[in-house]
């Protein structure tokens, strides 16, 4: 569960990012000290065709691949549309803004401050994690999904 005292922000580029660009963006962001939690958001890229006559057949997609953030490998399940961040204090957001200003030279972007992650465990969270859930997990992953979150171990 998120402490109300931790500020949050989100980075929304005008275009949805390719995995290569997302990898470069995330690597420039994680260098900023003071990020507590990070959420990559966007439309899903399923491994199999979800609907229609071809349902269940494999769905090869160039956007669904493993990227390396810092020293950790992350499997992308979505086309990156926005990055939501929870940071230690407001000063970190300004550092993130500087990093984004340097990064986004071709595509415009917006950096918004607000509350973008779940602030309380929902009924589904309770059903999945029970009453003593790890608060840092709430709001980061979809409780219905099998895959968990990734902990970034270090930086290049």
């Amino acid at each position, binding site marked *: 569960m998120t402490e109300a005292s931790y500020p949050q922000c989100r980075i929304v*580029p005008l*275009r*949805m990012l390719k995995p290569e660009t997302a990898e470069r963006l995330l690597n420039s962001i994680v260098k900023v000290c003071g990020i507590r939690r990070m959420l990559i958001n966007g*439309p899903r890229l399923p491994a199999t065709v979800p*609907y*229609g006559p071809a349902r269940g057949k494999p769905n090869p997609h*160039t956007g669904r691949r493993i990227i390396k953030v810092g020293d950790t490998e992350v499997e992308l399940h979505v*086309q990156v549309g926005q990055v939501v961040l929870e940071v230690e204090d407001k000063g970190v957001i300004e550092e993130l803004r500087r990093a984004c200003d340097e990064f986004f030279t071709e595509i415009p972007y917006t950096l918004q401050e607000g509350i973008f992650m779940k602030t309380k465990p929902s009924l589904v969270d309770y059903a999945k994690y029970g009453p003593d859930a790890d608060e840092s997990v709430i709001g980061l992953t979809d409780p219905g999904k099998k895959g968990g979150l990734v902990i970034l171990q270090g930086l290049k």
Partner: protein
Amino acid sequence: MAYTPQYGPGTSTVAENRRKQMNPDNKLEKVRDVTDEDVVLILGHRAPGAAYPTAHPPLAEAGEPDCPIRKIVTPTEGAKAGDRVRYIQFADSMFNAPSQPYQRTYSYSYRFRGIDPGTLSGRQIVECRERDLEAYSKFLLETEMFDPARCSVRGATVHGHSLRLAEDGMMFDMLQRCLLTGDGNVKYVKNQIGEPLDREVNVGKPMDEGWLKAHSTIFHSLVGVPYRDDQEYVEYVQRIHSLRTKYGFMPKE
């Protein structure tokens, strides 16, 4: 005096483009070549070169009943041969795609025969006899009603029309049926329902922003012509709204 259809109101380029697409007397510009075999591959209803499966015997052999309506209405080629009914479905991006679901249905109704369109917010499906469908699909893919990046043939899993575009300007497709290749052409690697194709199908290069804006049929306040700039259109829609609302009270103008 003979009735001359006006097709739609408006003074903006969007309104003009809508009228152009709807008016069957206006010949739409052909901007790319897609072969018959390519169309069959994208549709995915039958193997290229295979005979058309039939739903009933040809009408000439069927011995039709004596019916005045059948004497008035000439059957289409597909109906004559007894073809199955099959479909094509388009998803069109809100970022200045050259056609849009409602616009497609209006245009098809004016231009094509023997069709059954279905219109939704982000996609438009049309059903008809198979050989008619292939002819119509070829027309729709080759003319200015299609753009390889902003329009897409999607039989299922259509999500993407209202999303931001990808970096390369392509509309989001969960199944990635088509790819923008290194030579600048968009190629279909899967058919409309997401089954891989034996070979890539080239549908040409995406049109540039200037062309798309000039051929757009959607109002968009951020990337195109804002709706409120077309005063005539707004007045027309307000009049229809007003008359519909007052309908129960016997409106008189």
